[in-house]
């Protein structure tokens, strides 16, 4: 879930912007324009993917897909998510300019962390089963951490937000399971069709 404009305190906004800038700098250091093209198209694909409704019970949820993005891109997930969020701010006006840093950091850093978790698990449990378990954990962890960081940003902004922050984190839990399953199937599919994409 995106945090809207005008909610967070200046200190949290500043910290988020600084951390997002740092992550983006790390993510942009290595890739040349050849690789950036791939990052840009995958970023666009994730933008599309995050608009897909996944049916759950009587309703439906939107995916975040930051775990899958992290697994495919590593640290380049930072600039990819930043570009997608700027585009979203211009096209759909979900979360605006001042919260851009916080939203980028929340989603991208959790994606990067879940990519590390994915790689560690794949190394620990080699074989297709291990990959499935790792993909599920990567997808679920991405959402869980994003929910946690968002809740923390709210809680640090004002003590009055504490209950709202807890509710927001709890709302992320069902999405976590769906996202884990979707990431599992998507990674299995990619591993079968284009295995080289998983070690980009």
């Amino acid at each position, binding site marked *: 879930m995106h945090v809207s404009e005008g909610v967070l305190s200046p200190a949290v906004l500043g910290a988020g912007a600084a951390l997002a800038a740092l992550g983006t700098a790390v993510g942009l250091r290595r890739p040349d324009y050849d690789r950036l093209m791939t990052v840009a198209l995958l970023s666009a694909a994730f933008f599309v993917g995050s608009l897909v*409704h996944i049916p759950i019970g009587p309703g439906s949820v939107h995916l975040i897909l930051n775990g899958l993005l992290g697994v495919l891109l590593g640290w380049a997930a930072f600039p990819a998510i930043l570009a997608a969020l700027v585009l979203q701010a211009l096209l759909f006006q979900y979360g*605006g300019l001042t919260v851009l840093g916080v939203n980028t950091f929340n989603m991208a850093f959790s994606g990067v962390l879940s990519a590390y978790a994915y790689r560690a698990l794949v190394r620990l449990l080699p074989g297709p089963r291990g990959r499935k378990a790792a993909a599920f954990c990567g997808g679920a962890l991405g959402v869980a951490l994003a929910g946690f960081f968002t809740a923390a940003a709210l809680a640090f902004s004002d003590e009055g937000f504490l209950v709202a922050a807890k509710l927001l984190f709890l709302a992320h839990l069902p999405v976590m399971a769906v996202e884990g399953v979707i990431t599992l199937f998507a990674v299995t599919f990619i591993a079968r069709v284009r295995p080289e994409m998983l070690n980009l």
Partner: protein
Amino acid sequence: MTLSALDPRVRLGLAALTTLCLALVQQISSGLLGLVFGLGLLRLARPAVTSLPRRLAAVNIFVLFLWCVLPFTMPGEQISFGWLAASLPGLRLSLLITLKANAIFCVFQALSGDMPPSAAGRALEGLGCPAKLVFLFLVTGRYVHLLMEEWQTLMDAAKLRGFAPRAGLRAWRVLACLLGLLLIRSHERSRRVYEAMSLRAFTGNFRTVTLFQTRPADAILALVVLLFLAGIALTEMGLVHV
């Protein structure tokens, strides 16, 4: 002359500055002033966007969530409406956030609502954004609609083969595979596009024939916005009472 004819660099820069100032506001009166200014600017600009109500709803979903939670959970002085008790600081904070979020939305929509991603990308470059980031933004913006069409094609094909999106592992699996296919296709498209661009002597920056020009009208807009921001600052410090 409409607002959308002005220099995109000036519009984006002013939008960023105003957003930053409004996000830091702590007084209800300054938030109200911001909303009035934003609405005025929006009326003046009349951006050519058809989805303004939907965008407004997207902003206010989070605000609505806070209205449902903050007044009943924030500690402080209570005020009761019949059987319902709400805390004053919670109500005040919810109101402040509503005003700020909507004020920022209006200003941002008025100044950049109908700016195409390509103009926005070049304006960002003009404002000193790193070249690689601008490249990423321009290419992402260029291909988003294309990939949306591709996703629609994939979904249509699946539906023609009897796929119905229902809750359950089977439907999730199909959706995940389609998503994986979209990622693979976009990966391959990126290879092809880059090769085609290299063949046409691409070295890392896009060239354009439309140049941005700053004219007197831009200076007038900048002056109006800066005067408004000064007004907000004075209200915020309590020197002017609205």
